[in-house]
């Protein structure tokens, strides 16, 4: 390994990036754009769900409960109803998304320190809103029931603000795609432009070539990371409960892992178009669908769950959420970090094997 050669390759690669506005745009502008678009667009929060009330009790206690509902950010008052038909109709015509039904014996039971059941009729046609409405309602009733010893407090994300859990995951998904896309072009370009023929006639070694190629894109990846974290903290107001060092360490490793995936694709594909498309499919789809970012991994079939364990993004999504929201750095992240290191090592070994510094493999 010769430092002078690595430096020469890295320098040349930086010039390529600077001279090509498209790759510079992809490297720096697109991550910011994606974070803004998804950060605002993907919010799973429910605000001001129209709520109608059928108060059969009509007492101070029941009215207090109704006030708890309408005073929360999740619900807003959307009228009253007096019968089952009335309640059904209000949901059908869309005047309300949910109807709160309070039984006649509500106050009696509460004063006797017994539990009373209130009913929430929800419009299930938008299952996401329905699910969240139920969740919020659950929280409100449990808090309201002063007798209940079991008042539920949502841990780590007390406001249940989904932006908080989305942004760290989103950073993971964006870095995953961008890093792989960045390097996916860099080896294929040498083959496509014919410059590889000159390169392979020099005494340059594989390791020098790969490291020289990785360094500039690593720098871009780290810049992306810094920008994304700053946006998370100051634009979206996500708290960073864990240590900055942990965040830097984990992210630094992840960027390296995904850059390696990109460079393997580039080495194998030898055409820029094919390589960039492969990189997009290989990183974006599993990253988005299987990493636990959007869908809960525990709810997936066992086979699919096993597959998610082979995707670096799965670990990175978990790690970033842990560091941002929980702030812990226990045993589990170490295991995940080890996986990332192992994954990168395997990918780089495959790249070394696939990369031929002659024209036979062309």
């Amino acid at each position, binding site marked *: 390994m010769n430092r002078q050669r690595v430096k020469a*390759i890295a*320098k040349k690669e930086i010039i390529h990036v600077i001279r090509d506005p498209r790759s510079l745009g992809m490297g720096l502008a697109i991550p910011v754009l994606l974070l803004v678009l998804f950060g605002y667009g993907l919010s799973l929060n429910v605000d001001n769900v129209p709520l109608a009330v059928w108060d059969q009790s009509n007492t101070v206690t029941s009215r207090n409960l109704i006030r708890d509902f309408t005073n929360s950010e999740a619900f807003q008052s959307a009228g009253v109803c007096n019968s089952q038909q009335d309640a059904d109709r209000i949901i059908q015509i869309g005047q309300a998304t949910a109807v709160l039904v309070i039984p006649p014996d509500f106050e009696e039971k509460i004063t006797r320190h017994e539990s009373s059941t209130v009913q929430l009729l929800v419009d299930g046609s938008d299952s996401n809103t329905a699910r969240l409405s139920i969740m919020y309602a659950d929280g409100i009733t449990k808090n309201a029931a002063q007798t209940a010893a079991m008042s539920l407090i949502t841990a780590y994300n007390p406001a249940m603000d989904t932006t908080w859990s989305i942004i760290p995951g989103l950073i993971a998904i964006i870095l995953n795609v961008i890093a792989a896309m960045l390097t996916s072009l860099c080896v294929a370009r040498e083959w496509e432009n014919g410059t590889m023929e000159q390169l392979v006639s*020099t*005494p340059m070694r594989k390791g020098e070539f790969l490291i020289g190629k990785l360094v500039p894109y690593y720098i871009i990846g780290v810049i992306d990371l810094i920008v994304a974290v700053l946006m998370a903290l100051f634009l979206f107001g996500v708290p960073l409960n864990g240590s900055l060092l942990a965040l830097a360490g984990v992210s630094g490793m992840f960027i390296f892992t995904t850059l390696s995936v990109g460079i393997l694709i580039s080495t194998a594909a030898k055409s820029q178009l094919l390589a960039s498309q492969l990189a997009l499919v290989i990183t974006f789809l599993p990253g988005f669908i299987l990493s636990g970012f959007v869908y809960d991994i525990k709810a997936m079939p066992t086979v699919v769950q096993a597959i998610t364990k082979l995707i670096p993004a799965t670990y990175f999504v978990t790690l970033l959420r842990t560091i941002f929201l929980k702030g812990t750095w226990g045993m589990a992240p170490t295991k995940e970090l080890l996986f990332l290191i192992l994954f990168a090592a395997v990918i780089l070994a495959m790249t070394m094997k696939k990369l031929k*510094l002659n024209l036979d493999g062309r």
Partner: protein
Amino acid sequence: MVIEHLTKKFGDFTAVDDISFSVNKGEIFGFLGANGAGKSTTIRMLCGILKPTSGRGLVGGVDISKTPEKVKTFIGYMSQKFSLYDDLTIQENLNFFAGIYQISNRKEAVKRAIESAGLTGKEKKITGSLPVGWKQQLSLASAVMHNPSILFLDEPTSGVDPITRRKFWETIRKLSEAGTTVFVTTHYMMEAEYCDRLSIMRAGKVIALGTPIELKRKYEKKSLEDVFVSLVQKGVSK
């Protein structure tokens, strides 16, 4: 340089078919042949960037099949297709290859290369925008920057104007006088006359070898062009 029974097959196609010859140190060795005769394939094998299917090749005493990476340390190669970086400037291209070859006094070496290519004052020009003649001069300057003992030139003067071509051959002559072995392929019979020895290839085989004078005498022709045409046509009529 000693080549014995060197063969290269691409699938069913035999590009280079059992060729044997040797090249002496400091010689300008010309390689003639029609397109597709196997010249580039031969040159690539000798540079260690294409593995021979069979046969043996020693370049500078080093086996090209066994240790191609060793060959690469003392050769210079200028490929048929321009293969420096179009989006880099002249200076950046030379800086890059000076770095790759670990040239000790890089600034000085790059400056000298620019002078020898006659590109002084144009260092900051983007390579892709240069005319073919300048590009070829730059390729040559880049290929010899690290003072290789053996230089491989694959059709270095194709598409180059006659004046630049003459300059090219002056450079080649100088290098040879300084002890560099030059292995060059060409289409131009005028250029073949400048070579110390020539070989003519047809369909992967070497069909004639000798000094220009020997070849003309042997085939009883006045010019090398007549020798070449008669030999290649013989193959076509077969």
